[in-house]
């Protein structure tokens, strides 16, 4: 497909009928959390959309985000988004390697200056930039160089959005998120460990269709997908209200599908679309499979006090410290009582004299 072709022309040449295109637009509108009535809008916008260049940089990551994305689709709908974009650089998916690959990146940056979308997964180590390099270039330098002429940056996965697992205590590599390095470009954080695949493609579809970034929440995440917390959309919520909790992973409550609050579910403080969109094309999500939410789309979720400690337990330390405080209190109590008696005795003695 030529860069000058619109997506509509491209699809027609591929043999996709108008009917097929409408099906594609309905599914894409649904993907972008738009109301079904927006399908027509999407159709008009997509038909006239140009094919943006996308450069995907993978830094200090586990490749789970790319795996999640590539597992999610098959021919049609989601993969069409990738046909529609020009993925000019991606470590896992590209055939080129070595200098050829780096040249492809630099060429794409030059030819599409100011217009390409930069997708980043993985955190960036700044403790010592040499901890993670590609073609001898540190992640830090490559990010700064590639972001300079990007139209927008999509930070895919909790690592790129908030630092993720490398950022967890004690953060030996000095890992940071994209937004801690790049301050002058619009950044969309698509967090999650990994993010729900349709959320990733939904954000790309939004950019493809409207040429703008979607509405973001306070943490820079698309509000359409991260605007509600899991607790408010969880189908097990009635059990929470009635006080029916699973106490262990194999008791009666667990088998009946009761609320997992006591087993450490972080649903109330986690914002993501897992409870509605679910995973594996709507098959299930962690809570439905019987495990509490671990809060993987939130910053520092690894250090929030343990996946199996209930939210209300907090992160306050241990009982030994309290026993120490009690001992100190007892000592002060006895000491002050003895001192008070001594004063009393002294006063009595003074009076008797």
């Amino acid at each position, binding site marked *: 497909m030529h860069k000058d072709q619109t997506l509509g022309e491209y699809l027609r040449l591929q043999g996709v009928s108008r009917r097929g295109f409408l099906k594609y637009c309905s599914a894409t509108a649904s993907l972008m959390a738009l109301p*079904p009535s927006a399908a027509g809008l999407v159709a008009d916008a997509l038909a006239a959309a140009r094919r943006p260049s996308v450069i995907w940089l993978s830094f200090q990551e586990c490749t789970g985000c790319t795996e999640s994305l590539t597992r999610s689709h098959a021919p*049609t709908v989601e993969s069409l988004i990738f046909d529609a974009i020009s993925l000019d650089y991606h470590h896992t998916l590209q055939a080129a390697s070595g200098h050829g690959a780096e040249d492809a990146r630099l060429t794409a940056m030059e030819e599409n200056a100011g217009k390409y979308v930069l997708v980043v997964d993985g955190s960036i180590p700044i403790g010592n930039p040499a901890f993670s390099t590609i073609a001898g270039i540190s992640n830090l330098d490559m990010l700064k160089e590639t972001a300079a002429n990007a139209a927008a940056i999509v930070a895919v996965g909790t690592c790129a959005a908030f630092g993720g697992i490398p950022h967890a205590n004690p953060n030996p590599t000095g890992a940071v998120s994209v937004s801690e390095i790049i301050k002058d470009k619009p950044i969309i954080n698509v967090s999650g460990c990994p993010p729900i695949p349709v959320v990733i493609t939904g954000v790309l579809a939004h950019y493809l269709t409207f040429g703008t970034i979607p509405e973001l929440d306070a943490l820079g995440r698309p509000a359409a997908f991260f605007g509600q917390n899991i607790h408010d959309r969880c189908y097990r919520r009635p059990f929470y209200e009635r006080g029916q909790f699973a106490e262990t992973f194999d008791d009666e409550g667990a*088998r009946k599908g009761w609320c997992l609050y006591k087993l450490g579910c972080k649903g109330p403080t986690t914002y993501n679309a897992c409870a509605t969109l679910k995973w594996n094309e709507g098959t299930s999500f962690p809570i439905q499979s019987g495990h509490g939410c671990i809060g993987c789309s939130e910053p520092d979720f690894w250090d929030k006090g343990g996946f199996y400690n209930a939210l209300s337990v907090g992160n306050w330390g241990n009982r030994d410290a309290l026993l120490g405080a009690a001992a100190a209190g007892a000592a002060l109590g006895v000491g002050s009582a003895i001192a008070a008696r001594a004063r009393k005795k002294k006063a009595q003695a003074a009076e008797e004299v």
Partner: protein
Amino acid sequence: MSSLDAISVNVEAETGNVRPLLHEIRHALKRLANGEDGTVIDLRRLPLAPGEEERLDALLGKGEVHAEVDALGPTGVQETLYPGVWLITHCNAEGTTVARFIEVTRVPELLMSQQEDIDAGIRRLEKELEN
């Protein structure tokens, strides 16, 4: 796998969204009957507990019309037991469901032949007749 099957799991969960959804369909049908526009409901947008979507499908049932559309993968268009209420299931080429809609309309737009396709068809027919 047999040891896994031996773990009895008996999920009682319910979001309670099935009845309100049926009410929404009822209101949409009334509007349609009055000559107003149709309504589309995206089933992906609503939290539904395991089993509730199946219950909804069973309640809506199968009506007189079933159509299979083959465009970018199969799409099933089923009129339910309630005329005017259509269940549309979009699948990709591997047969995985990518979207589900309930359309309250006289006939879903997807079933109607589209203008661009008709124009393209006319050009092909004219070419065929030239030969």
